[in-house]
């Protein structure tokens, strides 16, 4: 069983909803990432999504784009991100880490090298935003072989056969995008999320994470009633942006916010 699978199994046992914060590796400076990851766990994160910075993040809104830009100012590469995960693993052997990013850095590194080195570093899952299952013929077997769970996005526009295809290729969990468009946009429609989540449940046994548009403890709590995991990205990245240049203040602000989300979910 992979670390992600055991994490969800334990959560199910204790009837808790997973809290999955997203941060971009190297934002706002490379030295901050590992301490921030530990702080996320200490404030209640069950799993961490770590963004691989990329200059052309076609599905991300301005908030996460800017996070990538801040990281790229420090030339944070995919290998640097793997190094950060390895460093995180020295102190935390339990919390699953999922890398989220775009295909090109992985393509350039090579699928075999990436899968092997990511496995070695202690990466548990990978979500490549611009890789649909249809294009995964080469990389998916390598990820499975290195015990890395591929996670795919399901969109509000995905039909049944698409959801089936995505669930078949996914391991660990699936990520339901609760809003159309880019990250950090718009308003949530709880009823439609509820309908879609139950549709996914009819198709797959995989845990369902819901993300996009979760801004505070109240929306997290509402989403937590529908899904197995709640993913929060832009709202956390905003706090990193607000306190850039001050590592201590960043960690404090992010920890306090993640603590609120945790409390909201556990209420």
């Amino acid at each position, binding site marked *: 069983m992979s670390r992600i699978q055991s994490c969800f199994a334990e959560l199910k046992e204790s009837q808790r909803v997973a809290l999955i914060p997203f941060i971009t590796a190297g934002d706002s400076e490379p030295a901050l990432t590992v301490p921030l990851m530990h702080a996320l766990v200490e404030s209640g994160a069950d799993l961490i999504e770590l963004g691989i910075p990329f200059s052309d993040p076609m*599905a991300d809104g301005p908030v996460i784009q800017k996070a990538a830009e801040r990281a790229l100012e420090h030339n944070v590469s995919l290998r640097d991100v793997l190094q950060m995960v390895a460093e995180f693993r020295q102190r935390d052997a339990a919390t699953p880490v999922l890398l989220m990013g775009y295909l090109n850095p992985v393509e350039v590194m090579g699928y075999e090298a990436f899968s092997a080195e990511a496995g070695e570093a202690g990466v548990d899952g990978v979500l490549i935003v611009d890789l649909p299952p249809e294009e995964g013929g080469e990389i998916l077997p390598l990820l499975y072989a290195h015990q890395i769970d591929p996670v795919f996005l399901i969109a509000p526009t995905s039909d049944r056969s698409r959801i089936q295809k995505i669930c078949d290729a996914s391991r660990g969990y699936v990520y339901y995008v609760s809003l159309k468009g880019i990250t950090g946009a718009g308003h949530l429609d709880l009823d439609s999320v509820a309908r879609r989540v139950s549709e996914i449940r009819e198709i797959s046994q995989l845990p369902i994470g819901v993300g996009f548009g979760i801004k505070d403890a109240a929306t997290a709590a509402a989403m937590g009633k529908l899904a197995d995991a709640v993913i929060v990205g832009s709202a956390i990245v905003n706090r990193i942006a607000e306190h850039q240049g001050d590592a201590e203040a960043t960690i404090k602000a992010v920890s306090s916010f993640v603590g609120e989300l945790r409390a909201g979910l556990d209420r």
Partner: protein
Amino acid sequence: MIETSLMPDENGYFGEYGGQIIPPELIQIMNDINDAYDEIRHTSAFQDELADLNKHYVGRPSPIYYAKKLSKQVGGARIFFKREDLNHTGAHKINHCLGEALLAKHMGKTKVLAETGAGQHGVALATACALMDLECEIHMGEIDIEKEHPNVTKMKILGCKLVPVTRGTKTLKDAVDSAFEEYLKDPVNYFYAIGSVVGPHPFPRMVRDFQSIVGKEARAQFLEEQGKLPDIVMACVGGGSNAIGLFTEFLPDESVEMIGVEPAGKGLDTPDNAATLTLGSKGALHGFKCYNLQDDNGEPLPVYSIASGLDYPGVGPQHCYLKDLGRVRYESVDDKACLDAFMTLSRTEGIIPALESAHAVAYAMDIAKDMSPDQTILINLSGRGDKDADFVAERLSL
């Protein structure tokens, strides 16, 4: 002999290039576009409408012109132009914009959007949308907006919404990101009419098909007028739409050499170029796999060309495949040679070319002098230089 039926294969691949490197939710939408395109392209209603527009609206067929004075001045091979610069809106871009707009209309899409570099695609798309009563939104980098203001003005007059792109390089690459971001807000009802033979399948194929009218006409015209095929066909390559448009019909003609000319900018030994096929490596960008100008970490480089329409770190997947097959040779020309060709063509023939097209003219002038007068070079003069006139005049202190 090249097997053209596999360009692309059923998954949208030209060899190992192309495909659909996009969020999973877009696969269905791209496949719907592919199906709708396959459904209508053979219908006589669609063919007749497009043919009628091509003839009466665009002014097709565009002529082939023998540049006698230029050829004489260069000495050597005879140089011919396929005059896409004479099309309505001043470039080859109208060829695929009319096709894309007809398709968008057929599919009941409510808004058409796209990126533009030099503004040629933007103007052509805004034109097609005005004609077909479609809402149009064009994303354009701030640097290009400044440089190409005549096209910006035209787009505004034509009633399209122009979105200035201030992020990243503020040029074509980031205009694509920005337009794509808008597209993702409602991909079911929007149509992203990509501006070249790039992007996810089916766009490289579809835009190629719409552009291939250039080569179809040119081959027949050249045969009729010269009694033989040209020795070399040549075009500039940014994304590669005008080049593919000219090359496609000639692919099976083994006697015809093909050359794509890329922008070497300030020099291949400087970072300021956009010679993707000359210097790039394999990668994936903007929805498809292709050669990219990128660093060791897979970050696209901030490329540069004097011609905004060529200023792009990727290139159409079919060009990548044709390069690997050795069927097309890709060369490059720097800003200086491009400007020289721009002025020379203007003053010998009275034809002001687009800076993009001037790259092909420059390379032809370079090799023609070592060829014999019974040899011929056919260049796709893909656009006219009205949009570049002020920029060049200022640059050369005219």
